[in-house]
């Protein structure tokens, strides 16, 4: 196609052959350094392929002379981070949990560590925001079956709830009043009415009055005559606005008839003490954590040692 070759007269440069509206594009040569830059990038690319994993094989990629791998780099980063965290973990384990609030900085680090540990171990049941669901406690609220101070939370974490093979576990058992034939279904309905009166969901009625008698005989031993529950037995407070299984008639009927037991693993055998302490701190920080009674005693003792502490 040499006959198609056009040379632009004013510049003496060849054209590329495109023409639009009488305007033609000059085939101006590129500067030489540009070419060198291209060669340099090619050499760089070849070097990169030799030094780093690059060529896809059937199961993996070529290894590269430097032996670099993203997994290796990740493992290094993880162990570096763990070395960094070691002092915090040691300080956490060696600090009395009742005095953790005394060092806000350590507390803050524990909360942050707990936040990520929670995302790994706890979200499956309690949800990513720790809001729980029916049967799985909401850890944000201020209602605690077994106590909501740091110490109680840590105990629950270590020993779990209702682990049959463990004698220190938190354990409570409500009879299955319907299934085991302790109460008749009419009686259960009366009890439901009474419990709903206790919770402020229904007005006093004849059924509820009958239920109150049944309650005194069957339930008060754990939940108390007034229904406020007993933490030492893990018996829920029936008079507050929160219920693990629901306060509607159907849910209450089911609970009283069949009873329900949630089980929580005993994390003491799976996680190290520092992580458990972090989790306790995090759960406590969610907004419903309670003050330690012991902390006030510690404060009282300190006042007494100062000489003017009279309660």
């Amino acid at each position, binding site marked *: 196609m040499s006959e198609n070759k056009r040379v632009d007269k004013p510049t003496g440069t060849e054209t590329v052959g495109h023409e639009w509206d009488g305007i033609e594009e000059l085939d101006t040569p*590129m500067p030489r*350094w540009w070419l060198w830059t291209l060669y340099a990038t090619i050499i760089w690319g070849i070097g990169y392929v030799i030094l780093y994993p690059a060529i896809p094989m059937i199961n993996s990629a070529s290894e590269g002379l430097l032996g670099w791998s993203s997994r290796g780099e990740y493992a290094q980063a993880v162990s570096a981070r763990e070395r960094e965290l070691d002092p915090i973990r040691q300080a956490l384990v060696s600090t009395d949990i009742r005095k953790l609030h005394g060092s806000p900085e350590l507390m803050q680090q524990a909360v942050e560590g707990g936040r990520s540990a929670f995302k790994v171990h706890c979200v499956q049941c309690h949800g990513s925001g720790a809001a729980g669901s029916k049967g799985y406690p*909401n850890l944000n609220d201020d209602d605690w079956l077994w106590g909501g101070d740091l110490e109680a939370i840590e105990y629950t974490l270590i020993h779990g709830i209702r682990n049959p093979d463990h004698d220190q576990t938190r354990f409570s058992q409500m009879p299955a009043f319907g299934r085991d034939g302790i109460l008749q279904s009419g009686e259960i309905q009366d009890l439901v009415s009474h419990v709903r009166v206790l919770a402020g969901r229904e007005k006093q009625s004849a059924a509820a009055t009958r239920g109150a008698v049944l309650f005194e005989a069957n339930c008060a031993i754990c939940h108390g005559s007034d229904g406020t529950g007993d933490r030492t037995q893990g018996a829920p407070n029936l008079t507050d606005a929160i219920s693990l299984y629901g306060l509607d008639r159907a849910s209450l009927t089911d609970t009283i008839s069949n009873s329900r037991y949630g089980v929580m693993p005993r994390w003491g055998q799976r996680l190290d003490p520092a992580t458990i302490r972090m989790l306790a701190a995090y759960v406590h920080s969610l907004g419903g954590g309670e003050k330690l009674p012991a902390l006030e005693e510690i404060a009282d003792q300190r006042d007494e040692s100062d000489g003017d502490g009279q309660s």
Partner: protein
Amino acid sequence: MGSPEEILDPELKLYESRKSVFPKAVNGPFRRLKWVIMAITLAIYYVTPWIRWDRGPYAPDQAVLVDLANRRFYMFGIEIWPHEFYYVAGMLVMAGIGLFLVTSAVGRAWCGYSCPQTVWTDLFQHVERAIDGDRNAQFKLQDAPWGPKKIGKRLAKWSVWLFIAFWTGGAWIMYFADAPTLVVDFWTGEAAFVAYATVGVLTLTTFIFGGFMREQVCIYMCPWPRIQTAMMDEKSLTVTYKDWRGEPRGSVKKAEAQPGSFGDCIDCNQCVAVCPTGIDIREGPQIGCITCALCIDACDSVMEKINRPRGLIDYATLEDADLEKAGKAHNPVLKTLFRPRTILYFSIWGAIGLAMLFAVGNRTRIDISANHDRNPVYVQLADGHVRNSYTINLRNMENRPRDMIIGMTELKGAVMWSNAGSRDGAGKTLVTSVPADSVSRLRLYIAAPGDGPVREDFALTVTAADDAEANDMDEIFFERPETGE
């Protein structure tokens, strides 16, 4: 495709090696202007980081500092936080429009006088002339075989270039850390790796761009000339060769021998010799011309010597050129400078500038931003109240610690407490201390009676304890569960 002979044609080159450009020294008003601008711009660049500015104990005392580590930008009395980055955006927009304004009024003055590539290339060329001699000596030296003299001169030139390049890279990092401390750290090996890397890269690029690539950067690498050539119009000033006066060219002798048959151009090539980008302005306006006007200086001095009127090469708008060609007088300068386009650019430029000044003058140095936590949206409390939680950021942009009072509007019966306290100590407001020049993040809990609308809008307010004028608010909402079973 062509035949093999054509492809192997030795004349046909796909890639072009650089033609050496050794501009000749020149003197004249434009050269002097270039000297002055070069001195000012270099001085600004090298000296600025060393200006001190007392900001008290909580902030650095460097007048201009880009504090990346702490995410602050200091410029004399103005301190910019990351969330105020729109000031920087505004400055960049002003710089852009400023370039449009300059280009539409006086053409490519930026390229010719104040572009860093121009300034440093100019500096490097002065060094080159001082060591190698002027244009002809430089050509001769380039063609000379390598010997002790040439090696010595090359080493001397490159050393000076490297020194300037290193100084340039070194000055750059001074803008990002306390300059006196950084200098000490730099020489004792204590500075951050990024400081050495930056100096290394900038030294290398200055050395290569200023010493070896020069006009190549302008012609092949810089996008700006393309934009500028598109932005210039017939009323923009540009360097113009008056071909109607200069052509046909002829030497002084020829012109004397045949009076009347030659123009004023005596083809002395001085305009080409002095051009830093190596172009011939007599071929007309072209992308390689950075309008530095050194050719005007060169041509004027020649015209003076041969007793012909100056201004054969001159700053002129294309419109003026046409008028002059037709024998008419130029447009008045004011009419060229003040026309709708420049006035529009200037108005936009000024409006942005005024708006930014106003914003800087009226900004509060205290700030609250609140986010409603979505997981969970609300929490039912044992006593029937509902609790929502918020993550709030309190900014204290003053250089002193400040107590701030957080409050809320229009939320009946609500109380607030933070993750540092408990509901026992909850109240309508919360006082918290925010350290100087920093952001405090805290989780705020608000509990309100459970009976109320599902969603209630209100605002979180913050007021400085010591100054009620310093306040800010953020609109937010409170959510409750749907009632009924």
